[in-house]
């Protein structure tokens, strides 16, 4: 390796098999208290429904379980280890006080059906978080029920459909820019809307002329991410909203990139009618290796009758409760009230920040992205020179000449001690490198990142094979994904 990295060093990590390979009969990690009621004969109670055998479930001791999962954990990269510049994913610090307060007994052990009079604490948290999110987005009302961003999109589009239906015509299609997340078209299909692609202009923004040409009474809504997936703020946002509204359409905003706006601008002020938030992005709840998320949907007044049930209300005696009778509601989108544990964490995050902290957070996130852009401009191709907000998208155009594509550069970044950026997205940039540092990175960490990216660019020129074969320092090298998909092995077998 020609270039040494200052960020990471290789060190020994433990091998570990599958838990089933450690199992043997008679080992146990559990102990039940003595039964304080009479024993029962399960065969007699259950008859032929009685289960006799639990197959190959493991039998292991507690220390083995601790070592097993601890060893596995050391094979993961994580925000706690360093910068995680996945564009569009907003991998920011997950504050530990959030985890602490979510585990306080009366919150962690609250049953969703316990009477409202002994649920006022939980309901107060829902209410306060709702008020904060309404203020942050500049909208009029909110539902916290959706379990993740895509679930929020579905909820939002259900409300869009219900709104149009109430106007006498549900309409037929949703306009979606070619730079959008894959969830947007997939969601439109779930709500039985046709998807019509909307192309971007040379600045990476919505092509206003195309929008004007495509907008008509069949269009229910435009699903727009703002700033968009190039990290570019749609400067014509008001024009976009006007074009939609003139023909009775609605503006849906995918709030995935809300980290660029909190405390600086409010979607409700620039014409958005309905939007979802990702509490696991903007509001610091942990990604946990792929969830849980939480996808509240904030709306303008005219969509309020269509909110999913139940809706949180303040009763005449001042206590909080749920209202279930909502004749125009789109219905329920999940059991109970949403991912409550994530609401606790998001509210703790807002409290730790306050208005000044939230604004500073956004400023730092945008400052960091621009610092990286400045540091790598000229070394990597910047397909759109439009100003960058919270993330910056380069392309592999220069490195591709030597055969190194975005995924190769990403894999090489691993050897330098970083998690890769988002590769090959958005689709409008061939060979995209999508970098979102978030506010959680220090100048020092970003200098190391810029240095690593520069070093890789040099390697591509001088020794491309090193990049093409990367990563070199991980437990496993590049895995055969084709074989995995062709003959899927989806479970262990004895």
């Amino acid at each position, binding site marked *: 390796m020609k270039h040494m990295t200052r960020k990471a060093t290789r060190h020994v990590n433990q091998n570990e098999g599958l838990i089933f390979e450690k199992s043997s009969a008679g080992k146990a990690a559990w102990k039940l208290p003595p039964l304080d009621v009479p024993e029962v004969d399960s065969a007699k109670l259950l008859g032929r429904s009685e289960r006799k055998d639990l197959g190959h479930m493991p039998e292991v001791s507690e220390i083995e379980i601790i070592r097993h999962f601890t060893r596995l954990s050391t094979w993961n990269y994580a925000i706690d280890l360093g910068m995680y510049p996945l564009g569009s994913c907003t991998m920011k610090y997950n504050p530990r006080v959030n985890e602490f307060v979510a585990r306080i007994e009366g919150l962690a052990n609250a049953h969703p059906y316990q009477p409202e009079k002994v649920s006022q604490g939980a309901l107060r948290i829902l209410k306060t978080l709702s008020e904060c999110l309404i203020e942050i987005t500049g909208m009029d009302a909110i539902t916290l029920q959706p379990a993740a961003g895509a679930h929020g999109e579905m909820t939002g589009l259900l409300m869009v459909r219900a709104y149009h239906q109430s106007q006498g015509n549900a309409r037929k299609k949703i306009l979606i820019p070619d730079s959008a997340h894959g969830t947007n078209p997939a969601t439109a299909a779930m709500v039985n809307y046709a998807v019509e692609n909307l192309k971007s202009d040379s600045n990476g923004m919505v092509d206003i002329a195309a929008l004007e040409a495509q907008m008509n009474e069949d269009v229910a809504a435009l699903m727009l991410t703002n700033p968009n997936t190039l990290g570019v703020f749609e400067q014509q946002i008001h024009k976009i909203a006007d074009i939609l509204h003139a023909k009775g359409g609605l503006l849906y905003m995918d709030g995935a990139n809300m980290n660029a706006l909190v405390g600086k601008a409010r979607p409700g002020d620039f014409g958005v009618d309905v939007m979802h938030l990702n509490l696991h992005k903007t509001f610091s709840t942990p990604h946990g290796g792929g969830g849980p998320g939480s996808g509240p949907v904030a709306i303008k007044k005219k969509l309020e009758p269509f909110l999913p049930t139940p809706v949180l209300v303040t009763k005449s005696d001042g206590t909080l409760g749920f209202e279930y009778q909502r004749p125009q509601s789109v219905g329920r989108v999940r059991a109970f009230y949403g991912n409550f544990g994530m609401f606790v964490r998001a509210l703790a995050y807002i*409290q730790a920040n306050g208005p000044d902290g939230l604004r500073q957070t956004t400023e730092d996130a945008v400052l960091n992205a621009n610092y990286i852009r400045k540091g790598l401009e000229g070394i990597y191709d910047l397909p759109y020179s439009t100003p960058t907000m919270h993330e910056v998208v380069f392309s592999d155009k220069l490195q591709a000449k030597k055969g190194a594509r975005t995924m190769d550069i990403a894999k090489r970044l691993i050897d330098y001690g970083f998690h890769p950026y988002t590769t090959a997205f958005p689709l409008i940039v061939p060979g995209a490198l999508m970098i979102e540092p978030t506010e959680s990175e220090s100048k020092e960490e970003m200098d190391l990142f810029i240095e690593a990216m520069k070093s890789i660019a040099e390697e591509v020129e001088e020794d491309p094979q090193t990049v093409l074969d990367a990563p070199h320092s991980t437990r496993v090298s590049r895995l055969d994904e084709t074989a995995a998909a062709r003959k899927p092995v989806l479970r262990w077998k004895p």
Partner: protein
Amino acid sequence: MRYLPKSPADREAMLKAIGLRSVDELFAPIPGEYRLSRDLNVPRQMAESEIVDYFRQRSRENGEGYTSFLGAGAYSHYRPVIIDALISRGEFLTAYTPYQAEISQGTLQSIFEFQTMICELTGMEVANASMYDGSTAAAEAVMMAVRLTGRRRVVVARSLHPEYREVLATYATHQGMPLGVVGFGDDGQINLQELEKSISAETACVLIQSPNFFGTIEDVAAIAEITHRSGAMLVVSIAEAVSLGIVEPPHEADIIAMEAQSFGVPLGFGGPYCGVIATREKFVRQMPGRLVGQTTDKHGKRGFVLTLATREQHIRREKATSNICTNQALIALMVNIFMTVYGRVGLKELAKQNLAKTAYAAGQFAKHGRVLFAGAPRFNEFVVETAEDPHDINNRLLRHKIVGGLPLKKFYPELGNAALWGCTELTTRSAIDTALRVVAESEGSVQSAKEEAAKEESVEELAR
């Protein structure tokens, strides 16, 4: 702000490097009229100690320290301490979806083990990495059956969790999937004659829950026989995962949609929980959600990757099997650790304790109220009908710091003053006895108990 790792000098230096004078210039792309020139009206910045105090106060307003007999899709089981110890490791907690397999093997291998154990417990051949929860898993499983059969009609058991039914109705509205409902008989099980009549050649699937919302274990083999006769698929929802320790899994099902909350996930006022879909290998390409598969690296070393991504939204966009993206990975890890702790023997013993507590409680309640659906086996819930409105009983119980059973009138008006009670291994005999004393305080209940006692005994006799 304590989460931000920059000094004013750092910010200055960075602005200078970019060639800007002030941070405001970075926000110039936002038209001036939309730039917020005031503070957000949210709580002021709080110290960590204040935040902890705030949530402790909310906890005290929230039934802290109450004993509960609620189940109904959310169950209070003991959570081994090592679950939180392990999931709190930053490498699990603060990692993203494992798209970069080389530095995500920990998450990937644990999901592979999770998929394996779900298969072992459900008797299915493949399981996904998780869905949002049991309700959305059931709805997605139904949509999967619609894709697989090319038919659109869906038959749903009325004894499926009422909120799951509501969620399915929401999902189905715009998919052109007409829903039919099949009722339950005096034993709490699905009415087989009614089921038979409700299935046609257009029926894509039948969706049932077992143990059902009343805790009653369904005769899955009989339901499957009727369902399959017309070429429809059987989707079985399992809301109480601990039942799998002692109740035979629904082998005859084509798709199982589970809620795994019982396996080490806190009640948490309803979420986050952990849905899962399990099915036959031949249906895997229509299954929604992430899947982890085993493969090898270029040196032949075993490793794991996310696989069959061509089903998913980031590849297929509007043609994907579902729009699901983020799921419940960290919760699935809790479930995984729980299953590992209890394992082959512990899960059975745990389930047996649930059975014993419930048998005791149901037997005691039968002395003071009418225990419905006694003719079929049940797991850890039972329905009690009292002369007194269960809301009034519950109000009295609250004074003893006890949360009583769930009044069912809201969901099942025909069940009158019935309530759904649940016990787990955590329910103590003394709590059962105390609750029972409070229930019995009501003259009316005692009265009805006297009337029903004789009838009840004969029914129980028959069941034996």
